[in-house]
C-alpha cells in the first residue's frame, strides 16, 4: 500500500515536471540546443567584457581567457568563484569523512591480494600518477582538468592500498598539500582583487590560444585544484579503507 502511494506520488511529480518543462523546452526532442543568443555565445567567443572577434586556434593572442578548452575557461576563469565554492564543498565532505571515520576505528586484517595485482600495481601506479598530473596540467588545452586529474591520482593510491595489505600512507604530506593548495587558490583570487579590482580576475598575460603556457591564471588554478582534489580524495580513500578492513 505504501509503495503504491509512493509510486503515485512520484508519477504525479513526473507529470508536473513534464508539463512544467514542456513550456520552455521540447521535452521529446533532442539536438536543438543551438548556441546563438545564449550566454554561452560570449563564453565561446571570449567577448564577455569586450568584443575580440573570431578566436583562431594557435593564432589569437591575448584573448580574454586564452584557454582552448571552453569548459575550462568557464570553470576556472569566468565562474571561478563557483569552483572555489565547489572545492570547499568537497573539502567539507573530506573533513566530515575523516571526522567520522578517523579516530577510534579498529584496524583489521585485509585479505592478501593476488599475485597479478601485487606485481602489476608497481608498474601501473607511476603511469597513473603521471597521467593524472598530465591531465590537470593540460586542463586548458585538452579534455579533463583539476577534478579528473585529482581523481586519477587518488585512484592510483587506491590501487596501492588494494595491492598491498600492509600499505600505510603517510598522510601528513597530503594534508599539507591540501591546505597549501586551498590557501593559494584564495591568494590567487586576492592578488586579482588587488591588481584587477575583482576577486579571481585574470591578471597574467593570456598568451597564444593553444600554447602550453597560455590562458593566464587557468593552469595555475587547475594545478592547485588538481593537488587539492587529489589529496582530498586520497584522504577519503584512506579513511574508508581503514574502516573497511576491520572485519
Amino acid at each position: 500500500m505504501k509503495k503504491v502511494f509512493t509510486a503515485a506520488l512520484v508519477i504525479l511529480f513526473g507529470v508536473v515536471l513534464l508539463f512544467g518543462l514542456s513550456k520552455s523546452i521540447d521535452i521529446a526532442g533532442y539536438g536543438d540546443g543551438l548556441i546563438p543568443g545564449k550566454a554561452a555565445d560570449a563564453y565561446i567567443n571570449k567577448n564577455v567584457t569586450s568584443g575580440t572577434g573570431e578566436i583562431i586556434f594557435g593564432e589569437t593572442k591575448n584573448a580574454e581567457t586564452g584557454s582552448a578548452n571552453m569548459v575550462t575557461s568557464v570553470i576556472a576563469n569566468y565562474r571561478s568563484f563557483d569552483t572555489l565554492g565547489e572545492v570547499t564543498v568537497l573539502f567539507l565532505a573530506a573533513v566530515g569523512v575523516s571526522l567520522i571515520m578517523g579516530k577510534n576505528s579498529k584496524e583489521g586484517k585485509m585479505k592478501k591480494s593476488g599475485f597479478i595485482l601485487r606485481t602489476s600495481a608497481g608498474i601501473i601506479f607511476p603511469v597513473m600518477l603521471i597521467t593524472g598530473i598530465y591531465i590537470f596540467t593540460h586542463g586548458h588545452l585538452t579534455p579533463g582538468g583539476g577534478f579528473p586529474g585529482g581523481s586519477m591520482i587518488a585512484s592510483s593510491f587506491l590501487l596501492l592500498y588494494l595491492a598491498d595489505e600492509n600499505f600505510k600512507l603517510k598522510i601528513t604530506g597530503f594534508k599539507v598539500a591540501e591546505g597549501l593548495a586551498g590557501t593559494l587558490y584564495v591568494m590567487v583570487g586576492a592578488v586579482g582583487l588587488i591588481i584587477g579590482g575583482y576577486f579571481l580576475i585574470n591578471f597574467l598575460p593570456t598568451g597564444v590560444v593553444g600554447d602550453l603556457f597560455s590562458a593566464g591564471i587557468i593552469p595555475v588554478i587547475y594545478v592547485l585544484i588538481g593537488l587539492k582534489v587529489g589529496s582530498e580524495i586520497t584522504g577519503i580513500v584512506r579513511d574508508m579503507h581503514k574502516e573497511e578492513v576491520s572485519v
Partner: protein
Amino acid sequence: MIRLASLLLILIGLYGIFSSRNVIKILIGVNVMELGVNIFIISVGFFKGGIAPILTADSFSSAMKFVDPLAQAMVLTSIVIGLGITALGLVFARKIHAQYDTYDLGAIGGGKDD
C-alpha cells in the same frame, strides 16, 4: 527522447529515495537521480552536428558549431558535489551499521510516526 529517458531516471531515483528505508538504497537512489539530472542538462546544451567545445587543430575557429560549454561546466560541478554527498553518505551508513548493526533507518527509531 533522451530527455524523457533522463526524466525517467530522475523519477526512478526519487522512487528509490521515497520507498526505501535502507541507507545504501537511498544513496543509490540519490546517485541515479543525479545521473538523470546530469544527462538532462547535457542534452539541453547539445545540438545535432555540434562539436566538443575545445579549440584544436581540427576545430580551430570559435565561429564553428560548438555545443554549449556552460551546461558541461554545470555538470562537472554537479558530479563533484555528487561525489562529496556519496562519500559522506556512505560514511554515515557505515557508522549507522557499526552502532545499530543494521542499514534500516526504520529499525533505529527513525520515522516512527507513520
